């Protein structure tokens, strides 16, 4: 019985205590803790977002490189002769001749779309000249953007080495490959 009375007493006390407001110290403490948690969560979210964005950019750069490498090798495979670079030479442009005697010129130009004042990149462009027209927009093709450096080396009359470094705000990606000319035997 005495025990029951004590329990009732405690209940009463609790009821009385719930009516008390939060003190300023408590409020500040809670606010501080909540702020710390909030900032941490924000930083994690923000970091993960930017990392995800960076990853997406890197993947986009690689996809661009993969597509451009395919386009480049397709163009070169239509050619019968590499005019420049000469055999044993490395240049930042490529001049090739097709079987139909068209001249393909691969060179870089400023990539204004992706460049900023502090961040400069180039784009690889190809111009097909058929001797009929000095310049025609239809013969002008953009192959890839985000180019930092590009080198063509001729180490065989039937193929050319392509060494491309791409870059975006998150870093660089470089690849080396070869593109072979169409082998048409004696046909010239």
């Amino acid at each position, binding site marked *: 019985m005495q025990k029951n009375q004590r329990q009732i007493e405690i209940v009463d006390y609790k009821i009385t205590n719930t009516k008390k407001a939060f003190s300023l110290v408590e409020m500040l403490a809670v606010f501080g803790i909540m702020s710390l*948690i909030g900032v941490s969560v924000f930083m994690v979210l923000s970091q993960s977002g930017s990392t995800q964005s960076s990853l997406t950019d890197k993947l986009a750069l690689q996809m661009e490189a993969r597509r451009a490498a395919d386009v480049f090798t397709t163009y070169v495979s239509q050619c019968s002769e590499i005019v420049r670079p000469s055999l044993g030479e490395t240049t930042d442009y490529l001049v090739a001749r097709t079987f139909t005697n068209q001249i393909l010129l691969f060179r870089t130009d400023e990539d204004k779309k992706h460049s900023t004042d502090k961040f400069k990149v180039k784009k690889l462009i190809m111009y097909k000249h058929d001797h009929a027209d000095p310049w025609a927009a239809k013969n002008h093709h953009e192959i890839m953007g985000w180019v930092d450096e590009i080198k063509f*080396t001729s180490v065989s009359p039937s193929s050319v*080495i392509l060494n491309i470094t791409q870059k975006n705000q998150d870093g660089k990606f470089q690849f080396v490959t070869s593109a072979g000319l169409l082998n048409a035997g004696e046909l010239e």
Partner: protein
Amino acid sequence: MSKSIIGGKGFTLVELVIAFFILMSIGAAFLIALRAGTQESTFLKEQFSAALLSRKVVEDVFAEVEINPWAADGIDFSKARMVDGESHFFSNLEDTKPPFFTIDTGEGNITSDCQPIYSLIEDFQISLKTDLSDPQIRTAKIALDWKSKNSKGRHETEFHYHNTTQQKEIDFPFTIEAGDLEKYICGFLYATQSQPIENILNNPTIGGHKNTIESLGQAGFMTSRFFSSDIYTDTVQEIELLEQEKQGLMSAVSLPGKELDACLKKLVEKRYNLAKISFQVFVFITPYLETIMQNNNQASLGIHFTNPVLLKVLLQNVTRLGDFFTLALWQTIVDLQTYFTPGFSKQISIKKLADNSLRIISLGRLLSFNSIYSKMGKDGKADYLKILNQVETSFKGRFAAMERLVAQEKDFQQNVSAAMAKNPSLANVYEYLKPGGKFSVILKFIKDNYPL
């Protein structure tokens, strides 16, 4: 009492644990997503690089095999690093320093200065395995292995190319009408019109075995057919005119490259064509000549053994055929060597110079072991070595595959039997041309037994 009760107003341990667990779960989910993204990015980057590097090896093998049919035999390798010049497929990739227009040994390799590609492929190892079991189609497999962050990275490529070293039948350039041979035998060997051979041979004053006389007829008929054919007479006349034109162009103060190239192209084509046909005729009549050699007696040859005037004329035509083939071959090489003339080689495309270099190597190879050329007082091996040195000088530091071909040809000159074992097609030709070969034995027989 009241102090402890105020303290009880904070979060309970269970609440804290749950809250911590929730935060940890959210954080872990983000980390896993980030990690997966990073891994995917790395995986794609490595796979893409491996695909492009494999493509380079494929192109290089195609380029190598195109100029050197033996190249595929010795290119297998296992787990070679691709950086620091450890694999020739990834060496000398660029002309980086003077003298320009040549890539010196050790120049243009992927070294630690070449970033970011060096770091990316530093651990890559490449293997190449060729399957030579199919005589027509070769299969090559490229495998790239590298240490990836979570597992081993691997990229495999398989490709095919034609084998041009397999044995080929030597074609015969003419068709023979029924009755032509008999008409020739009766007319040329016995000065009579269309009489059956058996009747002629049954005459005891003439005699001879039908098989031997027919062999004699085949050899004589085909040889005279070649020298009297339109293709021979017309082409020889055209060659004479072209030779005059060539001499005129060569004596010009500044070489007219385009005209000279056009003239040489025709000359090479015509001379080579005649050399090829004369060789094919010689190969065709070889078994018939061997029959005559085996039956060089009164019983088999009859009147032609006792009075060999016509036999001498016929067999000397065979000697002339061998000489003609060898001279046409040599002159074709001389014409092709014109392309290396200073002042002219600069006027033609490097592709044309490379194509002509391959032609000159193919023909020079035949000259190097041609016993007829040696009988003319020439040194085929020495001349071929000069040709190889000329080609080597023209492409040094510029065309590694050509340099490797030249080095291989020099090795083959040291060990011809090894070269023939690798190339059944060439071995077939070698059996006729080599010292002590079929042509050599026949021509010696003619010289010893039926000199003019």
